[in-house]
């Protein structure tokens, strides 16, 4: 099978039939190239969305209050629900399956932060220590809010690097005091927080919720409850969400079926929904990719048919000169395999190059790092080479069966 002489025979045939070679090669290269682009874009899309979810824990349930919309036990609809510390404590102690939890108290209006002569308007989030894990805050210097801060009502704050830059201008902020709406808080740490929706998560500082409620006369009001559900399944997580809702319904006396009294956002459920969407998209891409490959195979077999027809006379001559049927089959087959593998490899490399160069330019919230599993690409290539060989085999066998006398009959 592998003798250099045969390869030389094949190479000289290829060299002298450039157009034919090009056409065969092109359909194969194009098939693989398109498959690479398709798979790569699909992966890029998925990466982008997954990154979107990475910015906060993917197993979080967020709860915030609204207005009742259904009458309940003689009370009219339209009541405002105000969540308080006791709600949070009750949820935390009575609902099973909660991993991490925090309530959040927002100070409305603009909050002026200042240090020496620098000042700026930023958001202030007042939370429990767990919140850092829920939001996936990344500590750069110092530490996040901790339990003693909460218990002892410490006036401490963890600030974003953006705030640090705006107020401290390169000075080390740790253990310095900044004014929050006129009240001094000691900086205990700095953080960064990825968020693809602009820099919302960076234009803020964190305070211990107990301190903030006391200092900014928040009493016991809270705005949001966030809990994580560990490695619960979607069903379990929905159950937890439901029991949080009904607990709050009992505490605030509203219809548990009321859709507007309490709002929830279950990121696990949504995450899984999107992931399910992606597996459908992946399937879809595979179907298209397979279609492309099949089109490539059909193209190759078509061309091989023409090649054999084209070479009928040559095959007749070869047979008259003593070529065995097998030598004819292997000549045509090896040529087909050679062309498909080279062209396929070329398409593969081209696909990777295009993905790499275009990919970095197309970086956006929903598109990131398009890449192809090289293993899959190589399987696809092998499949194509194999099918090319198979596609070549049928006409090659036909060619080998050509009676020399028919092939050589003068036109």
């Amino acid at each position, binding site marked *: 099978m592998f003798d250099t*002489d045969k390869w030389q025979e094949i190479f000289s045939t290829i060299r002298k039939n450039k157009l034919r070679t090009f056409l065969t090669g092109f359909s194969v290269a194009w098939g693989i190239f398109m498959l690479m682009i398709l798979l790569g874009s699909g992966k890029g899309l998925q990466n982008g969305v997954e990154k979107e979810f990475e910015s906060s824990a993917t197993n979080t349930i967020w709860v915030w209050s609204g207005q009742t919309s259904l009458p309940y036990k003689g009370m009219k609809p339209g009541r405002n629900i105000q969540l308080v510390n006791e709600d949070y404590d009750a949820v935390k102690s009575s609902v099973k399956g909660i991993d991490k939890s925090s309530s959040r108290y927002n100070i409305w209006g603009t909050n002026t932060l200042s240090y020496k002569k620098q000042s700026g308007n930023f958001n202030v989030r007042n939370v429990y220590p767990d919140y850092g894990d829920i939001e996936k805050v990344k500590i750069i210097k110092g530490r996040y809010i901790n339990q003693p801060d909460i218990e002892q009502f410490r006036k401490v704050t963890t600030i974003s690097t953006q705030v640090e830059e705006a107020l401290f201008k390169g000075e080390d902020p740790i253990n310095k005091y900044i004014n929050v709406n006129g009240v001094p808080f000691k900086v205990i740490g700095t953080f960064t927080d990825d968020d693809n929706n602009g820099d919302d998560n960076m234009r803020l500082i964190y305070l211990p919720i107990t301190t903030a409620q006391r200092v900014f006369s928040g009493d016991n009001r809270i705005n949001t409850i966030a809990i994580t559900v560990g490695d619960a399944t979607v069903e379990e997580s929905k159950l937890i969400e439901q029991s949080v809702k009904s607990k709050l319904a009992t505490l605030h006396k509203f219809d548990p079926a009321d859709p507007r009294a309490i709002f929830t956002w279950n990121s696990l459920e949504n995450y899984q929904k999107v992931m399910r969407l992606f597996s459908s998209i992946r399937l879809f891409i595979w179907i298209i990719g397979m279609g492309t490959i099949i089109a490539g195979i059909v193209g190759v077999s078509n061309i091989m048919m023409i090649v054999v027809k084209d070479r009928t006379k040559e095959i007749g001559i070869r047979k008259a000169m*003593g*070529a065995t049927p097998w030598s004819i089959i292997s000549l045509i087959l090896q040529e087909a395999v050679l062309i498909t593998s080279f062209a396929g490899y070329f398409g593969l490399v081209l696909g990777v190059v295009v993905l790499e160069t275009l990919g970095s330019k197309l970086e956006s919230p929903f598109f990131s790092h398009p890449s192809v599993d090289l293993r899959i690409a190589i399987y696809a290539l092998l499949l194509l080479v194999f099918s090319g060989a198979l596609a070549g085999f049928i006409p090659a066998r036909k060619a080998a069966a050509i009676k020399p006398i028919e092939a*050589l009959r003068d036109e």
Partner: protein
Amino acid sequence: MIRLNGINKSYVTGANKLHVLKGIDLHIQAGEFVSIMGSSGSGKSTLLNILGILDEHDTGEYFLDNTLIRNQSETKAAGLRNKYIGFVFQSFNLISFKNAMENVALPLYYQNVGRKKRNRIAMEYLDRMGLTEWAEHMPNELSGGQKQRIAIARALISKPKVILADEPTGALDTTTSYEVMQILKEINKEGITIIIVTHENDISHMTNRIIHLKDGLIESEVLNGKDAMLS
């Protein structure tokens, strides 16, 4: 060298059955120079194809060099062709994308002779045909006479026992035709059996024996005394 006993051959085209050869008995000695003549449809090309193991006969016996040729596999037929028979065709049948030397060397490729060696041998045969300087040229750059001489060199390179020539001068002018016949004659003198199919009287008269075919039967055989004396 060649012995045919009652060779029959018919072609089936659709519902029609065409009986082309109706019992050919023929004996050709080693070293003979024979021409087969006949009008078109007389079965001369079919006979040549059977002799060349390019086609199979239906009934009868064919001995080539005392080997019975009958229903052999394609692979075996290919081996026999390569070993015993050299072909020369009317339309030359050179491979268009190979140069003169590579065309001549082709039969040796199917004898697994290495590339360098077969090209060297091909050059020797081209030299015999006086075509050394055309070795690198492609067939479409050559004249008909040159192409036919290359085809003859190709037929000779495998050192066959028999050369079968189907209208070897059919596509050539008179002068070139005579040159080609002269070459075939010289080859015959070396002891190679040559059988040519032709419908030109002057060509057939350059051979030792003329076999006339008519309607699938041998009509007459003429020993060409004049040429026999010359040789």
